[in-house]
Each structure stands twice: as structure tokens, then as C-alpha cells.
């Protein structure tokens, strides 16, 4: 156990107990430690990616574009330009002589071909080194083509994913304030920090419609440039996902005075609480909204609760581990597992803040491992130590769980099942159930040990 933890990382791992909670975080990843983190570019790319009618051009060598081609299940109800992968595919001579000319020609070519409503130009590591003037190129092309062309300062090495979120927010902020807001209702919101994975934003928008709210802009799931341009006309920003779009909410508050509320659409508790918070915000303008919200919550919960109880019966007492990108999601997951009668024995994130981890320590049980910026060696040793039944994470965590014969639930970009909203809680329970209750675990070495075939047959539990 001790041998898998780097001494430099010891203060980034805490076991909740009697001691006052203290954790180190927000540090650069340790060289050689196989961090599960990504880079600045990744942060920008995931946030802006779902804007479906914009051109997303990655200025750099091919890898950055290739690895992010159609990477998220962010659905669009209309255009799907975001699902194509565009790159300037910089070559050696561009690195030597500069890539500005190639960028400009590529932009003109692609804008003519696809007629996008705006273009985002992502800077990558190498562009930061060779010093291409993205602003100048973008301005020239914008003037020539008459659409917004926005540089995204996402050089990979200039921080971690959070810096990328910030760069994405800055780019979007340049769009905001340029659209017509005259037909926007006073009962209106922008949805920030939802990416419409598996159609989730459509579920949430339906709730808001029933409450009597107008959604001005989806930021960014099923997003459209024109909506974002008039987002400053909304009365309120509702912000999910602590890291990714909070900076935009702060910028909008500062510039346009738009207030914001932090919400979460995962799990019954947080989903309902989020809707009530929003209804409460509009209490003076629309006192009836609270009742409509209560009716909506009741209607939804009535449908799913009996189903959830069935899953709960099977899952009670099972052990869950959580390792996600942003800590916000972990809060909701801890509560969701509790609702299913399960014990969370490990919870961690790539980019949580001190306050995030403090909050996690408050909602978890004693003995729970809380970890920042972990790696496969640590995660696998935690899974073994805690004899975990199901691990929630992303693609990179999946083989760690599976190799050890531990159940898994993908709660990241690639999920194909909607996990938000009330129905999402049911889907989540179903997915956890289908992994934990699978009969395959009885065959894995973790359960059977290293034995001969003969002794394994004798010891095999009766079904």
C-alpha cells in the first residue's frame, strides 16, 4: 500500500476521521506519476465543443484535433458542425517559419465550405512556443468573413484543465452582448455547465418549461452562437459543474449584473433543490412558480421512486468509489449513492479545490478516502483495500476497475445514458445495478483467488 504512494503526494490523500480535515490540492501534477488529468486545451475543448453551429479549428499538430474528434456525446437538435474535427495539422516548416499564414488560409477555406455562425480557434502547446499572433489572424478573418472569429488561448502547458475552462469562458464572453435581447421574458435563464450528453439538457429544459421559464442560451450543450450572443438578456444564470463555466457566470455578473445560482441536476435531492432554488429566485415576479415546481417534482419522483426502491433492495450495503474530473459531480454522486443505500468508500477528483474537499469531508462517512489528482497505482490500491463493488469514473478509470474485477459506471463525456434529471437518477440506479449485480464477478480472481481449476469448481458459490 505505502509503496504505491509518492511521498510528495501524501498530503493529497486523506482518510476522513476524527482529525480536523486538511488536504493539499490545486498543485501541478507530479512528473512521472501518470496523472489522470488532461491539459489546458482539453479544458477549453470540452467546454466549447457542444456549440453546434460554430467551426472549431485546432491550430496545432494533428494529435490535439485527432484525440478530440467527436469525443463527447454532446447532442445537437440541429446543426452538427461540432462533430467534425478540424486542424491546421502544423508541419515542421510551419513550426520554423510560423503558422499564421496557414491558419488564415485554413480558416478562410473552412468558413467558405461550412458557413458557420462563428469560429473558435484553439491554440495548442506549440503555438504558444512559436508565438503565432492568433488575435491578429482572427481579427483579419472576422473582418473579411463577417462572423465572430474567436481565439481560445488554450496552450496545453499553461496550467491544467481549469485554466482551459477559463480560456473557453473568455472566448464565449466576447460573443455575449452582441445579440438582440428585446423579446426575452423577465422569467428567463441561461443554462451554464451542461453539455447535453445523451440529451440531458433536453430533460432539464423541459422542467424549466413546465416551471414557466424561458431558456435564452444553452451554455454549451446543444448550444448556438446566436443564443450565446444574447445571453446577457437573461434574468439569471444557473450554473452547473463547478469549474467549467463559473468564470463566465462571474464575468457576466460583473459586466451585466446577471446574478447566478449554483445547481446540480444529478440525483433526486440536488435536482429538486436546484429547481426550488430557481423558483425561489423568481418568487416576487411569479409566486405561482413554486407550486408548479412542487407539482413537477412530485410528479417526477412519484414515477421513479418505486422503481428506485427495487434497485435499492439489491444495492444496500454495497461499496462505491468515485473519481471524477470536477468535485461538484462528486457531491451529487455521494448523495445519490446514499439514496441507493450504498457506502461511498473513496471519493476523489482531478481538479477539486480546498472548499470542494472540505464539503466532501462533511458529507462522507468516517474512513472514506478523499484524494486529489490521483493515478492508476493509487486508485487500484484503494479499490483493493476497500473491496469496492462499483467504481464511477471516466474512460481512463474503466480498465483499472475492470482489470481488478470491479464494477464500473461511466459518468463522463462518453456516457450514452442520460444521468441528469429525475429520470437520470433512475438510469443511474439501473446502470449501477446492472454492473454490481452481474454474475461475472463470481469468476474474477479477486473473488476466487489464485487456484487450480479443480479447486475453483468446488468452491464456486451456488447460484
Amino acid at each position, binding site marked *: 500500500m505505502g509503496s504505491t504512494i509518492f511521498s510528495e503526494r501524501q498530503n493529497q490523500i486523506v482518510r476522513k476521521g476524527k482529525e480536523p480535515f486538511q488536504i493539499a490540492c490545486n498543485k501541478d501534477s*507530479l512528473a512521472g506519476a501518470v496523472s489522470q488529468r488532461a491539459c489546458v486545451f482539453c479544458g477549453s475543448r470540452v467546454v466549447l465543443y457542444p456549440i453546434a453551429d460554430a467551426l472549431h479549428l485546432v491550430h496545432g499538430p494533428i494529435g490535439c484535433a485527432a484525440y478530440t474528434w467527436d469525443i463527447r456525446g454532446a447532442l445537437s437538435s440541429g446543426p452538427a458542425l461540432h462533430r467534425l474535427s478540424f486542424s491546421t495539422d*502544423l508541419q*515542421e516548416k510551419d513550426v520554423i517559419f510560423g503558422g499564421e499564414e496557414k491558419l488564415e488560409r485554413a*480558416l478562410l*477555406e473552412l468558413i467558405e465550405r461550412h458557413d458557420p455562425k462563428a469560429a473558435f480557434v484553439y491554440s495548442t*502547446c506549440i503555438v504558444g512556443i512559436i508565438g503565432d499572433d492568433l488575435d491578429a489572424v482572427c481579427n483579419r478573418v472576422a473582418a473579411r468573413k463577417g462572423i465572430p472569429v474567436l481565439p481560445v488561448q488554450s496552450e496545453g*502547458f499553461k496550467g491544467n484543465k481549469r485554466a482551459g475552462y477559463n480560456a473557453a469562458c473568455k472566448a464565449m464572453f466576447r460573443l455575449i452582448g452582441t445579440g438582440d435581447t428585446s423579446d426575452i421574458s423577465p422569467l428567463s435563464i441561461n443554462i451554464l455547465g451542461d453539455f447535453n450528453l445523451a440529451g440531458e439538457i433536453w430533460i432539464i429544459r423541459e422542467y424549466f418549461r413546465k416551471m414557466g421559464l424561458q431558456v435564452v442560451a444553452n451554455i454549451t450543450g446543444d448550444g448556438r452562437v446566436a443564443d450565446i450572443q444574447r445571453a446577457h438578456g437573461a434574468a439569471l444564470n444557473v450554473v452547473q459543474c463547478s469549474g467549467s463555466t463559473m468564470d463566465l457566470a462571474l464575468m457576466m455578473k460583473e459586466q451585466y449584473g446577471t446574478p447566478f445560482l449554483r445547481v446540480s441536476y444529478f440525483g433526486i435531492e440536488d435536482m429538486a433543490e436546484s429547481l426550488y432554488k430557481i423558483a425561489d429566485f423568481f418568487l416576487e415576479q411569479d409566486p405561482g412558480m413554486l407550486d408548479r415546481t412542487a407539482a413537477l417534482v412530485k410528479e417526477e419522483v412519484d414515477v421513479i421512486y418505486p422503481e428506485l426502491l427495487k434497485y435499492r433492495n439489491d444495492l444496500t450495503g454495497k461499496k462505491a468509489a468515485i473519481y471524477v474530473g470536477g468535485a461538484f459531480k462528486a457531491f451529487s454522486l455521494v448523495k445519490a449513492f446514499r439514496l441507493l443505500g450504498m457506502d461511498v468508500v473513496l471519493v476523489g477528483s482531478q481538479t477539486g479545490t480546498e472548499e470542494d474537499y472540505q464539503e466532501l469531508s462533511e458529507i462522507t462517512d468516517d474512513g472514506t478516502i478523499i484524494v486529489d489528482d490521483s493515478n492508476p497505482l493509487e486508485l*487500484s490500491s484503494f479499490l483493493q483495500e476497500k473491496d469496492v463493488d462499483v467504481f464511477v469514473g471516466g474512460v481512463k478509470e474503466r480498465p483499472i476497475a475492470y482489470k481488478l474485477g470491479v464494477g464500473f459506471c461511466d459518468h463522463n463525456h462518453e456516457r450514452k445514458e442520460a444521468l441528469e434529471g429525475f429520470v437520470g437518477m433512475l438510469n443511474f440506479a439501473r446502470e449501477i445495478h446492472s454492473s454490481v449485480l452481474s454474475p461475472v464477478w463470481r469468476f474474477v480472481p479477486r473473488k476466487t483467488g489464485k487456484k487450480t481449476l479443480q479447486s475453483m469448481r468446488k468452491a464456486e458459490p451456488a447460484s
Partner: protein
Amino acid sequence: MKHHTEPYVSTTNACKLCKPLGACLAFRGMEGAIPFLHGSQGCATYMRRYIISHFREPMDIASSSLGEKHAVYGGGPNLKLGIKNVLTKYHAGLIGIASTCLTETIGDDLPMIVREFHGDFPDLLHEHGDPSIVTVSTPSYSGTHMEGFHDAVRATVDQLAVADFPNGRVGVFPGFLSPSDIRYLKEVLDDFGIPATILPDISLTLDGPALDEYEKIPRGGTPISEIKSLGGARSVIEFGRTPARKGTAGTLLESRFGIPLHSIGTPIGLRESDRLFEVLEELSCRETPERHMLARGRLIDSFVDGHKYVFGKKAVVYGEGDLVVGLTSFLAEVGIKPVLCATSTRTGNLERAIGDVLEEFTLASPLVKEGVDFYEIAEEAESLEPDFIIGSSKGYHLARRWNVPLIRVGFPIHDRFGGHRMLHIGYAGAQSLFDLIVNTLIERKQEQSPVGYTYI
């Protein structure tokens, strides 16, 4: 879509990956090795994710995790720290360090940094079993993942292989094949009684069993001691018709140690497999063992049984150069017309290689394209009206648009299960490919028929 004459400036839906990814895959096939990227954290993470989605196996890639100050003052200190951490935590037998576009551009000199590390920490290295440290230059702005793969294999041989007493072993450089392919290759070599060193060998490292303990570095891979002894090999076999003849691991062993090199195509289909078995007969002074002769006979028997289902069908073939050449050769020999053969790599050798494998088949004269992306493949292929396309899963959008089947082969296969268990090479590989293609075409015909035939 109008036809263009000028090459496009932009790339849309690339049909290639970046160079360091290939290097990481190659290092993963060496025993006790940990691939290590000198660059920003994102590179390692993106590549891990991409590789994991295909193999469904753990794929740890260490990174020097460079930040802004390292980009300004040089990444050497962080690389050394990373090597130290990998030494102490992973107990690696080999650390395979590949550069990235960032560290190439800021001018970090990998061999020099590693030399310094050897000078600074001899005791630490010794304490951890004196692992080999191999470096390879893989700037992603020059070449594709396939060049990265070959360069990493070559660099390993260059830096580790030493003059050795003749050891009677045969060195095999198969290129980037699936774990099943490598397993098959090992069986074949065994059946011939040829002691061989296959480099790299991902048969176990990227397709391992269920475990009760997480392995820091997966079991399997080419033993480092065998790599070092390659200088004493009696012969070398290298697959692939497209890489530049100079500068491969095989040519290096040939020129440095005078080891005879058998350079053959990737053994896909009947004739390219025959070449492999001919070489093995020659090296072992034995006839091909009966089980393989029977497999060959059954393959031909199935060609006869199935020939009418496939005759004259038009196929678009895309992917890594050597895979494309092998597939094209195979398709032509069963009567399928390859209409477009496309790869993203620019070696200048594809046209000649395709010409060589198609020489005896005058029916087939496909359009051959190097350096293309999926946008160009689509543009070229649309008017060719293919009956199916064959390549990685990244061509799915084209298959969907044209409503033709996609036969998934090679890497990556992100939208199907067990892609890494796909067998491509030898008589057995040709058999499974042929069955797959025939059945795909039959299924399409059956589905589209109003009759609902139950005998086909």
C-alpha cells in the same frame, strides 16, 4: 461535393494520429517497459484514453507534466524528476521516453538529459536494477503515429542491441499488429521451431487476463535481454512494404551487424502469407507444418466456396500504409476490386507497393492516395460507389452516409467490442477476414431483399 485539384490547407477528420502515440504503443510491447512522454500532461492523457478505448486494457503513460516555467527554462529538470519517480514507483526494466512537439520546439535534448541523469544518479539506477532508458524523437509535426511506432522500435534496437555471439535467434519486426496477430505469429514461429525475438510484442501487455492485483506494468512484452542480443541474431524478418527502406530496425541490424534481412509485406491474405511461410521454411530448413498447410488449403477451399458473393465488389481501403497494402493484396486475390487505397502517411512508397501486390491482377487498378484525411477520402470515393469500406472505426461516418458496410480492421476500433482480438495475418487471419467480408455482404443482401431468403 465538388472535385478539387489544389490540395486543401486545412485537415478535416484526420486519418492519422500523432507520432508519440505510436512510440507509446511500441514501448508497451517491451517487457517491463513504461512509456514516458516528455511534454505537457494532456498528451499522455489523451493518448491513454484513445488507446484504452480500443484495447480496453490499462495503459499507463508517464509524463513529465511540463508547465509554463518549464517551457521557458527547459524541461530537463522535470524529466529527470519524472524518471526518478518512475524508477521508484514502477520498477521499470525499460523507460521509453518519447518527445512531443512542445519539447522538440523548446529544444530539449533527450539523449543529453538522459546522459546527465545517468551521471547524476548512478546509485539510484543501480538500486533499481539498472533499467534501460531509451529515447526517441517524435515531434508530432513531422510524421504520423506509424512513423512514431517504427522510430521507437528502431531507437530501441539502436540504443540497446549490441554485438553478440551468434545466438541462433531470429529477430522479427512485425510493425503495428493486434495482440491476436502477435499471438498467432508466435505460434507459427514455434511450429517451425524457430527461436525468435518479436519486437514489439503486445500479445499479453495489451490483452491480458483478469487479475486480482493491479500490475504496475503488465506482464509480457519482448524481453530486454533478447533485444540486447539482437546483435547476435542469425536473421531478421521485417514486415511492411511502405516504410522507407533505410532507417528501419531491420536495416539497422543489417548494416551494423551484417545480419541478413528478409523484408516482406505484412502477411495479410494468401500470397503475402505465403511469402512469410516461404521465409520461415528457408530459415528453419523445414517444410511448413501440416496444420498450416491444412489451414492454407481450407482457406483456398473457402475462397472457392465464397467467390461469387464477393466478385467484382468495390472496396475503399484506408488506414496505415502497410495494412492498406496487405488488405488490398488480399481483396484483389479473392476478386474484390479495391477502388481507392488511402493512407495519411507520406512515404512516397504506397503507389509502388500497391502496384507490386496487384501486378498479376489486371482487373484492379485503384486510385492510390497518400497524405489524405477523411474529407479527401470521401471526396475521392463518392463517385467510385464502393460496396463496402474497410479500415478503422473512424470511417464509420462515411459508411453511414453512403449506406454501405464498414468492415472494421486495424486500429482504432472504438465502436465495437473485441477489436484488439481481431486477427489479420497469416492463413488464419485471411480466413477470418474472408468470412467476415463474405458474411457482411450476404447480410446486406439478405436485409435488402424483400424475399427474406433463409438459404444463401
